[in-house]
């Protein structure tokens, strides 16, 4: 470090680092863009009942249908974004679809984290047979391409939003388990854990008070930023016709409704553009927001490029 002396105030190192991280976050255009995008989506999700009042308050995720004709209708005053095949209102679908996206993202990431942390920490701390078994299990899950395994699980579990979430969770938890296990193995070697043991701390105590706080902090960040890819995977499942039931407000579903209408009549081939462009843009922007934020975080946290 080229002569950066100690003429800063005496602030606790970790706090100083967090402040530095936040400062860098605020000044990086990438992260600002990412945060802005996500903020907009959060607003949409929260304001869904206001932006698109559900005709049946008990079933807000059922997209209202204006008739049963199959041909999609273009944007109009009654249907701001037009209608999809079967006359489902696209505007309603994308607004409430935002809520679906967040639900799926948060639930799946939360569940994967929970399973991953528990199994990963058991595996990392105890080692031996427990560790071996877990590694084999994760190896096996990793042996399958993600989408394909998720499809297989979904087919077995039946067609519903819960099965989609379960399938995606089953595919995602091993990554977090592995990361946490690695972190724990690293932290285990640190001397203060030895010291704690000599003072007679119990296993559980050591794991929760000493090892986990250090290992979890980066994992949380990685996992939160995975929400984008999780939603992408879930959308792919919906698009393939696996997952949420027909008429449920979900971005992937809306695009799957557009499959027969990609190319219009010869004189106006892009006639039904609204059926696939609009929901697709929502997905793209949502995932982009998370990825931008994720990239910015990764650049900022990487100790080698941090202070360039």
């Amino acid at each position, binding site marked *: *470090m*080229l*002569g*950066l*002396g*100690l*003429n800063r105030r005496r602030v606790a190192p970790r706090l100083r680092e967090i402040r530095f991280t936040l400062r860098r976050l605020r000044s990086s255009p990438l992260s600002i863009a990412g945060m802005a995008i996500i903020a907009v989506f959060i607003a949409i999700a929260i304001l869904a009942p206001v932006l698109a009042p559900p005709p049946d308050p008990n079933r807000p995720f059922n997209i209202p249908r204006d008739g049963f004709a199959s041909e999609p209708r273009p944007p109009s005053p009654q249907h701001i974004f037009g209608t999809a095949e079967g006359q489902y209102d696209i505007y309603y679908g994308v607004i409430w679809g935002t809520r679906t996206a967040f639900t799926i993202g948060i639930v799946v990431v939360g569940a994967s984290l929970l399973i991953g942390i528990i199994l990963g920490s058991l595996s990392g701390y105890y080692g031996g047979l427990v560790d071996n078994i877990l590694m084999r299990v994760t190896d096996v899950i990793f042996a399958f391409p993600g989408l394909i395994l998720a499809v297989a699980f979904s087919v077995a579990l039946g067609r519903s939003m819960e099965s989609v979430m379960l399938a995606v969770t089953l595919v995602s938890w091993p990554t977090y388990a592995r990361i946490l296990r690695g972190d724990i193995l690293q932290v285990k070697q640190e001397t203060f854990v030895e010291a704690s043991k000599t003072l007679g701390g119990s296993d559980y105590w050591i794991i929760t008070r000493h090892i986990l706080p250090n290992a979890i902090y980066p994992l949380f960040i990685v996992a939160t930023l995975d929400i984008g890819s999780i939603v992408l995977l879930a959308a792919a499942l919906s698009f393939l016709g696996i997952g949420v039931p027909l008429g449920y407000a979900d971005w992937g579903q809306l695009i799957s409704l557009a499959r027969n209408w990609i190319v219009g009549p010869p004189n106006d081939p892009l006639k039904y553009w609204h059926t696939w462009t609009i929901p697709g843009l929502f997905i793209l922007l949502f995932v982009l927001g998370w990825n931008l934020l994720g990239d910015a975080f990764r650049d900022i946290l990487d100790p080698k490029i941090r*202070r*360039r």
Partner: protein
Amino acid sequence: MAEVQDLTLRYYTYEGVVKALERVNLVVRTGETLGVVGETGSGKTVTALAIMGIVLPPGKIEEGSIILHHDGGYIEVTKARVDVLQRIRGRLVAMIFQEPSQALNPVYTIEDQIGEAYLTHMHGEIYTKAHQEVERDIERGGIKVRIERLMLRRLLRNPNDRLANFLGRLPLLGAYRSRVKRIVRGMVVDMLRQMDVPDPERVASSYPHELSGGMKQRAVIAMALACRPALLIADEPTTSLDVTIEAQILELIRRMKVRYDTTVLFITHDLGLIAEMADRVAVMYAGSVVEVADVKSIFSRPLHPYTQALLRAIPRIGVRELTPIEGTIPNLVNPPSGCRFHPRCPYAFEKCKLEQPQLTMPEEGRLVACHLY
């Protein structure tokens, strides 16, 4: 041999402009070993790299000049063209680094990496030798040897000949390559033997991670001295080695200096090594040279307060207390005004805060940058 005049170098980083070197003046006389002492951050490595024309971004040379003398002519490094610099690096000036494991590429063998130095700077001799061998074999061999001769002739005229290099990758047409490789390997093994490397054949074929620290450093030194450079810059060459290996390496450097008549610029923070290796000493602090003298005078009668403090801080037998230097190294983004040492100097007075002292000659053969003189 080398003159650095008023060299000023700044790094433009996210944290601010780091004033790494401020009017550095240094002279390396031909045939001597000049020791450069200083703490981390004093600018010694940066100066060494600058002498080789290597300025890592985001750095920029603001002012000053670096002149290398050779064969009756000279090169102005700060203004030289890239291809000129590439020709002198490894040939006229060579450098060995602190961490030998860092300096060696893990995916190539030792013979590949040392051989590279030979092929870059001594391709003429190598191809000539190969050509001579081929001429001898020309009656016995068949078409293969003729093709080799063809390729080698092209390479003799122009080592970067695209045709030869491209076709050389093919099985038959590339026959000359194994011959060249064999010759280079011979040179590498010879060089390693001179480095006192036991079993040089095996070491040459090894990868860096298969060798011990001392062995790696010998390989790095072999790489640097391969083309007989006139100036060898050694940047903390023994800091990462065990004490016993350190002694061997230092002895090696001394011997090589005599054998190849090399001028040595020895950079370290360890005054003990300076006492052992150097003829003259330059002391650097916070980006400038503060004192220059012959090694005896530096130790017996240091003039600059910083040098005095450094010597006082060395642990001595019989003395119970350690006397560290008050304060810490300055922040080079916002260095102290005037003389950069003044916040820590026991003799500082008004002028020291206002004006940075220049190097003056208070006595014959000695330079100091201090307002006391």
